[in-house]
């Protein structure tokens, strides 16, 4: 409120209200086949570039390096290696649920065997001794799958399968 005698006014803010901006994002053919295959077969596919043979997971339509259209999908493993990771201690609002995801939780970029790029997802562990670059992981799928990236529940650490002499660190060069 405003007090004309003292010249003081309560400062105001206006919020954006309850309006929300809904969007519908097209996955294209390759993206749709990627998620449909996870949903129906619990398997991963990647897009292979006809120019450089790199395999992109998740798939995309264009290889930026070669500036070429990618059409071919190839199977890749449901196991792979952490190339970047973090344990989240301060959680933000989960865009799937609108509520904060319980902390702590592990998250990583994972290069699946047979892929040249890394896929981001959650980990089943917050153990600092185990959540490391180079650690081996395997996908765990949800029971009920709907054709979304969250059909993958998380990646489970499987350090007993650590590949001897496996590459340590991330490179798509």
């Amino acid at each position, binding site marked *: 409120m405003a007090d004309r005698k003292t010249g003081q006014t309560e400062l105001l803010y*206006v919020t954006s209200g309850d309006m929300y*901006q809904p969007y519908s994002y097209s996955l*294209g053919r390759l993206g749709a086949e990627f998620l449909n295959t996870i949903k129906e077969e619990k398997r991963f596919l990647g897009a292979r570039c006809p120019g450089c043979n790199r395999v992109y997971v998740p798939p995309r339509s*264009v290889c930026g390096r070669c500036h070429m259209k990618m059409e071919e999908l190839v199977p890749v493993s449901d196991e792979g290696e952490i190339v970047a990771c973090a344990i989240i201690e301060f959680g933000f609002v989960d865009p799937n649920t609108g509520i904060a995801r319980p902390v702590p939780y592990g998250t990583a970029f994972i290069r699946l065997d047979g892929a040249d790029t890394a896929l981001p997802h959650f980990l089943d562990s917050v153990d600092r001794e185990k959540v490391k670059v180079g650690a081996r992981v395997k996908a765990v799928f949800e029971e009920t799958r709907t054709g979304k990236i969250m059909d993958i529940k998380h990646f489970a650490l499987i350090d007993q399968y650590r590949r001897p002499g496996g590459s340590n660190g991330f490179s798509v060069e």
Partner: protein
Amino acid sequence: MEKVAVMGVGQTSFEREKDDTFEEMVFEAVQAALSDAGGKIGDIDNVLTVSNDFWDGRTISSMSVMYAAGAWDKDVSTVEGDGIFGAIYGAMRTLAGSFDTTLVVAHAKGSMGRMNLITNGMFDPIYQRPLGIDATMAAALQARCYMERTGATEEDFASVSVKNHRNGCRNPHVHLGMELSIEDVLRSRKISDPLKLYDCSPISDGAAAVVLANERGAKRFAQKPAWIRGMGHCSDSYTLGYRDLANTRALQAASRKAYGMAGIADPLKELDVVELYDAYSYMELLWYEGLGLAAEGRGAELMMSGATCMGGDLPVNPSGGVLSAHPVLVAGLARLAEAVLQVRGDAGERQVAGAKTALAHGINGACGQAHGVIVIGT
């Protein structure tokens, strides 16, 4: 002075709903522009993307298309606004001498969001957005101002719609070419008085790209150059309440600058074809005046004279214009692409015979807050 040319143009089809991803649309437009230029992605020194985060439903939308835009290991700059401003900025980057060639690509998928919510988002959040104002409501206010000032009628507006939708029948890129009568337009569904359905452009998906080069860079390509003879841009007030909505002073300033560079004294006589941004039918009449093709208040008269129809002295929007397809942000770059095809004689069924000098026009912001004009010639 150093010169800059458009060496190649590419457009996807513009459709109401495309299944393609942004990446697929951008790649298609870029490949088409490179192929038209007779060059390869390696001939491009830098890339300029045109996109808008609200329309794309993501932040840094400009960066996410870099693979398809061919920007790997190249400098990328961005225009968040209509593609004609991207082309003007791209021409400046080329003229500045840092780069001999520039690729400009614009994309939009109007189908993936909600037009009225997204365009509501361009207005002031405290005093204007709560009123529900969007692009079409603002346009209705401008149309009414124009009618009050000039005496133009809804029939005059309808005649623009009839002309441009008819022209659209000859353009394979657009989705709303059709034969309409004045009556069809007048009787179409009321959207925001005085605007009816056929006074309003559709919401479209698509992408467009152009390859720009200075004289040195032009030698890399097989295509004949379409030289930029002049260009100009100017903005009016952001706040609609500070503007006389029926006054075209920003377009007058932009076009006079372009005419000055191009050495054009009488645009109605010296231009052979015009591609302008008719987001709503009445805008074409208002832009006639701003471009100096008609005296103030005489836009409707020029329309009714038939001069701007195919076969007239100065055909306007032989492509069908924005009324026949409106991929937001892309539409101004598509105007430039069409102007280039016209002066090269490559416009197919929509070719204006003997066109040597063409004008392309784009707008940005509500009710044409900002205008960009490019005069192109062989």
